[in-house]
């Protein structure tokens, strides 16, 4: 576990795109800024300490020539530094916006107030994969995110993996990232998008190619039918209470207003990175989401205690 000041830091890259930006743009700019600050502070100190030559000989032509040279040299250095930084900026921008290779994995990330819909393309005749708030990626492979929005402008920021990119209604943007090591990396909406902008997080789960493929295959499966009476009762409660907004593949539940819950129990968080996915949080969130995320579009549910236990038990079967 890294210390908190390194966790999810844009200054400690875990991915190829951010490494490139840090190594080729941020570090040189930082070094240049430090050097220029030191030079300017040094010159200021020298000017404060030296004798006031000008006051003693105001019309000395040699002094006038010296000042002209100094100002010209400083201007030329400033222009040169800015041109070098502009060159770095253009070259890094070209590298980060270059078209990724043909083997890149494509993932559609659609912003909603205030959660992320994640879809993996249907490249075969099999069902496409729909999940939410968790982007699984294979380590070392370039992943292209196709960015859309259904309501307002959001911005996808996988903090330690790549730069941020806006999601704009009516337009498809794209960005790429490549995780260098397995791990779970925090992401965040980076464009103010309304009441619960701050609680619009997501996770990037980077895993080995093999375990990623197993995950993707499992996500393609429909939900297994409930095996015991409690979960069967929970499914009935779900279908009568939740199904207009939430989908569970393999059941009549096909709502698209909220996240697809086909494999909810396999996700680490609920409510877009707001709470750990535990039984207690699930129950509290179902009953009173407005206390946890005021303004969220999920309404409170008044469930009788046996119905609450049943629906939570059913959701826990959705692995």
């Amino acid at each position, binding site marked *: 576990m890294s210390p908190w000041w390194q966790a999810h830091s844009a200054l400690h890259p875990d991915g190829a795109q951010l490494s490139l930006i840090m190594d080729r743009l941020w570090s040189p700019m930082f070094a240049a800024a430090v050097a220029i600050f030191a030079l300017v502070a040094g010159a200021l100190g020298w000017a404060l300490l030296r004798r006031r030559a000008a006051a003693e000989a105001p019309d000395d032509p040699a002094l006038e020539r010296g000042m002209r040279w100094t100002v010209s040299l400083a201007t030329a250095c400033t222009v040169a530094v800015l041109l070098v930084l502009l060159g770095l900026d253009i070259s890094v921008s070209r590298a980060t916006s270059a078209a990724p290779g043909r083997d890149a994995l494509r993932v559609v990330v659609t912003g909603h107030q205030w959660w992320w819909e994640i879809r993996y393309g249907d490249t075969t005749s099999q069902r496409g994969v729909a999940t939410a708030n968790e982007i699984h990626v294979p380590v070392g492979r370039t992943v292209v995110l196709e960015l859309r929005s259904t309501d307002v402008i959001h911005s996808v920021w996988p903090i330690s993996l790549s730069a941020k990119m806006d999601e704009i209604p009516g337009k498809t943007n794209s960005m790429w990232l490549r995780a260098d090591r397995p791990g779970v990396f925090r992401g965040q909406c980076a464009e103010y998008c309304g009441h619960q902008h701050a609680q619009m997080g997501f996770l990037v789960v980077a895993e080995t190619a093999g375990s990623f493929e197993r995950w993707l295959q499992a996500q393609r499966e429909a939900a297994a039918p409930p095996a015991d009476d409690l979960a069967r009762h929970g499914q009935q409660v779900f279908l009568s209470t939740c199904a207009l907004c939430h989908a569970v593949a393999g059941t009549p539940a096909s709502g698209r207003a909220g996240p697809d819950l086909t494999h909810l129990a396999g996700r680490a968080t609920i409510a877009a990175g707001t709470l750990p996915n*535990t*039984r207690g*949080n699930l129950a*509290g969130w179902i009953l*009173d989401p407005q206390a946890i995320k005021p303004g969220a579009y999920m309404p409170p549910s008044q469930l009788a205690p046996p119905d609450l*236990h049943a629906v939570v038990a059913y959701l826990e079967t959705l692995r």
Partner: protein
Amino acid sequence: MARCVLLLGVAGVLLGCQDNPPARPVPGGDPAAGKQLLAERGCGSCHTIPGVSGANGLVGPPLDHFARRTYIAGEVINNADFLVRWIEVPQAIEPGTAMPNLGVTEGQARSMAAYLYTLH
């Protein structure tokens, strides 16, 4: 003079009232670990619990002053044995309760109870 004595007496009674009742010991319970568990298990999604980050739920009753409450769930006396059992298996204390069984071990329940008993 008599008035002074009276005032001192009243002040003494008031101060006496403000004294915290003695902490209720929970054998084997670690309040710090319990506080952590209350946050991790999501108790705060339903309960407001002073000192626990994010615990501002309104679904169930607030747990402030828990050490001074007389009953648990309106069913049993508020003592360590009942509280540990209530956290472990709520249905055993109050069949039909909406409070879910969170699958905590007895040891974890002891720590959670120990933290709740720090709330005077």
